[in-house]
């Protein structure tokens, strides 16, 4: 089985500790807040100057002056704060935001990240991607394991322009949890029903299987399609 996008988001959410300050990128990471357990106090940061992002605003109850970094209308949690862009990027670049979960087009075995520009893309935009990748210690990627053509996104070397070199710590995908270590990629978890061989077949860079490698613990409702052997 692969995990659904919600399943990947759920799995990341399980690893965010109480007291963490988390920046969430576009793509699968936007689904994470739904799965943050209520008993853990976790503050979600939005680069436009918000710490303590709450759920989306209900239709009709949107505040015109309150959007997140993807311009969606949101609410704030108790204890939230608002501030200007310089302070917001002080939190990012200065390493005060403890975790960032972002999407990626490619990740290399050494932690190089490419998530801002496809070669040949006509109009480029970078936003805060580089500041996050350079500034935040626990940089996690949440993405599909292969691209929409079925080709691996975890490579020996990135082919797209880099967002930052050697910055990714962990990769959460629909079939695996992979840790990036100085000695290369370590396979920590595989989606239920798959094995290390199946993950390696969809990964260009070599994987070392952790001694305690196990099934990803994700509720059955987030199990997606069954992969052909």
């Amino acid at each position: 089985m692969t995990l659904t996008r919600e399943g990947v988001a759920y799995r990341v959410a399980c690893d965010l500790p109480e007291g963490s300050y988390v920046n969430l990128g576009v793509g699968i990471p936007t689904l994470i807040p739904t799965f943050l357990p209520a008993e853990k106090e976790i503050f979600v940061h939005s680069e436009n100057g918000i710490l303590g992002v709450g759920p989306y605003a209900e239709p009709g109850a949107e505040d015109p002056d309150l959007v997140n970094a993807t311009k969606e209308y949101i609410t704030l949690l108790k204890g939230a704060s608002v501030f200007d862009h310089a302070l917001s990027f002080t939190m990012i670049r200065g390493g005060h935001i403890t975790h960032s979960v972002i999407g990626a087009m490619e990740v290399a075995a050494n932690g190089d990240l490419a998530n801002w520009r496809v070669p040949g893309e006509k109009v480029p935009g970078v936003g805060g991607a580089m500041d996050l990748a350079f500034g935040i210690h626990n940089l996690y990627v949440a993405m599909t394991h292969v691209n929409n053509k079925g080709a691996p996104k975890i490579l020996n070397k990135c082919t797209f322009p880099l967002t930052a070199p050697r910055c990714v710590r962990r990769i959460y995908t629909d079939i695996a949890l992979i840790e990036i270590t100085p000695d290369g990629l370590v396979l920590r978890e595989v989606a239920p029903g798959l094995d290390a061989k199946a993950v390696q077949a969809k990964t260009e860079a070599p994987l070392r299987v952790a001694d305690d490698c196990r099934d990803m613990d994700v509720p059955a409702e987030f199990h997606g399609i069954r992969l052909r052997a």
Partner: protein
Amino acid sequence: MIDKTVATCSEAVAKVFDGATIMVGGFGSPGIPSMLVEALRKQGAKNLVVISNNAGSDDWGLGGLIQDGRVRKLVASFPNSPGADAFKDLYMKGEIELELVPQGTLIERIRAGGAGIGGFYTPTGVGTELAAGKETRVINGREQVLESPLYADFTLIKAYRGDRLGNLTYRLAMRNFNPIMATAADVVIAEVDELVPVGTLGLEEIHTPGIFVDAVVKVERHPRLFEPQRARRAKK
């Protein structure tokens, strides 16, 4: 008596000249000085260099100014956001120049410009194409790239409330680039939702002290500013 209030947006932007560099605040719709930008469209200055996080959206505000062919160059971090079609069209035709800057570097360059700082080193971008050709040095064991300050002839910002001294306060996420851009131009023009008597704004709620501001105009909000359907789309 100091009185920085100006009756209309067109009066406020009257002195913008051809070739001027202009900062425009805002992120998403909060804090976008759309009425000032619309007045600038009518005013006619051209060949402008605009410093703004985005390239506006659709055919109004900054998107409209770009669509009218009035912007020679854009300095931005995310000019390809949904709706920024005017910029995308001109860029693909080679009719507008782009200086792409990582968002944190963009705000810090503006902060440096306003604070009288001659530049700074940051790790952001080292080893990527956005730092290509720039001076680097190793500081505290980490390679960093030298970035230059940004300063403008005019800054256009939006605040929630202001007084005749130019003191400004912002609601919620309206602050974003605005208070920093307010420090980094020769002439700083603010549109406000409410103009209040001096002494009304609480001391601790003044985010932009009046010293930075040259003109304050009370406006009605641009009708396109609030687009709640986006949130609904996102929920699906």
